[in-house]
């Protein structure tokens, strides 16, 4: 990609200066407004759940980490839609045709024996770390997305080392893992309706188990989606760079 990397040449100097002045004014206003945000969240009503999650409420949520409680219990809808966004991104990237760009499979790393030996340690350790993050997410910082990101790191290393290639796209396990997060989330949401609760309102006592099930599926989805997105985007970018060099 060899276009002019500097500023837009069609943007005149005067326009640029005017824009800069406008931006500085906007920044000043933004800084003033941001500093005006009250320190303590406003209570919208008597029910403090609207803005702040009370510790007693968190105790009912089935997990001890307030962020996990918000993500998977109080605002589970957000997280469900976020997992749907991941699937949409995969569909979008595939529809953009990035996958059909042939990938130069020889990148010089396949023959690197040190990398291949290191992978034998890094990949299992990543899996253990991901499992630990997932489990710890109940009471400490951590959770499905952090665990999925660690797993996807291992997957991306496998791709870079040439151990994993495009054929995984046709593997049914990849496709299942891709939608597992959304699917399990929706199924749990519907399942609790059969025992008289509302959509995604976990019956008391089962919250922890249900959250753990959703998080495990979400971790798998995040991991394979990130690996796919990296592979689909980095491959064409690398081949475009090689074309430029030639």
């Amino acid at each position, binding site marked *: 990609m060899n276009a002019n990397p500097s500023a837009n040449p069609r943007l005149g100097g005067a326009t640029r200066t005017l824009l800069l002045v406008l931006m500085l004014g906007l920044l000043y206003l933004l800084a003033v407004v941001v500093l005006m*945000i009250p*320190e303590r969240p406003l209570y919208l009503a008597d029910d403090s759940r609207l803005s702040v999650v009370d510790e007693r409420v968190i105790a009912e949520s089935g997990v001890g980490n307030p*962020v996990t409680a918000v993500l998977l219990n109080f605002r589970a809808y957000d997280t469900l839609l*976020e997992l749907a966004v991941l699937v949409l991104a995969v569909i979008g990237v595939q529809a953009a045709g990035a996958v059909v760009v042939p990938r130069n499979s020889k990148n010089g790393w396949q023959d690197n024996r040190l990398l291949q030996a290191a992978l034998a340690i890094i990949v299992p350790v990543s899996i253990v770390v991901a499992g630990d993050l997932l489990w710890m997410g109940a009471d400490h910082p951590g959770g499905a*997305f952090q665990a999925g990101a660690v797993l996807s790191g291992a997957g991306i290393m496998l791709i870079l080392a040439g151990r994993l290639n495009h054929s995984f796209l046709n593997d049914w396990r990849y496709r299942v893992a891709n939608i597992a997060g959304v699917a399990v989330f929706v199924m749990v949401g519907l399942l609790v309706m059969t025992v008289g609760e509302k959509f995604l309102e976990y019956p008391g006592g089962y919250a922890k188990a249900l959250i753990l099930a959703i998080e495990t599926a979400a971790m798998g989805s*995040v991991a394979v989606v990130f690996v796919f997105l990296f592979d689909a985007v980095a491959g*064409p970018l690398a081949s475009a760079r090689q074309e430029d060099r030639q």
Partner: protein
Amino acid sequence: MTPLTFYLLCGVGLFGMGLFAFLTVAHLLRKVLALNVLGAGVFMVLIAVAHPDRSSLQPASPDPIPHALVLTGIVVAVSATALALALTCQYYAVTGRTDLPEDSPGSERPGP
């Protein structure tokens, strides 16, 4: 100036840098990068705002909702970045260009 107000102002600064770069830079990859810088500024403001006591850095349990929003936002930002990069790659493959054509009536659009 306490550390938290510093974080807030840094977040605003990152937002401004990202927005300015997004508007002035022509290369599409740089536009995607600029959007990411802009998003990082927003995340930084949200994280700092969650702290209940801005005048001290005493450990206090922050409001978890902004933190959860940021966690969600990061994942969505990564997905959106990947989609933007895929579209950029395809645009380059089809047109051979890395910037968008100017919208001026009467002028012929370059491209295929």
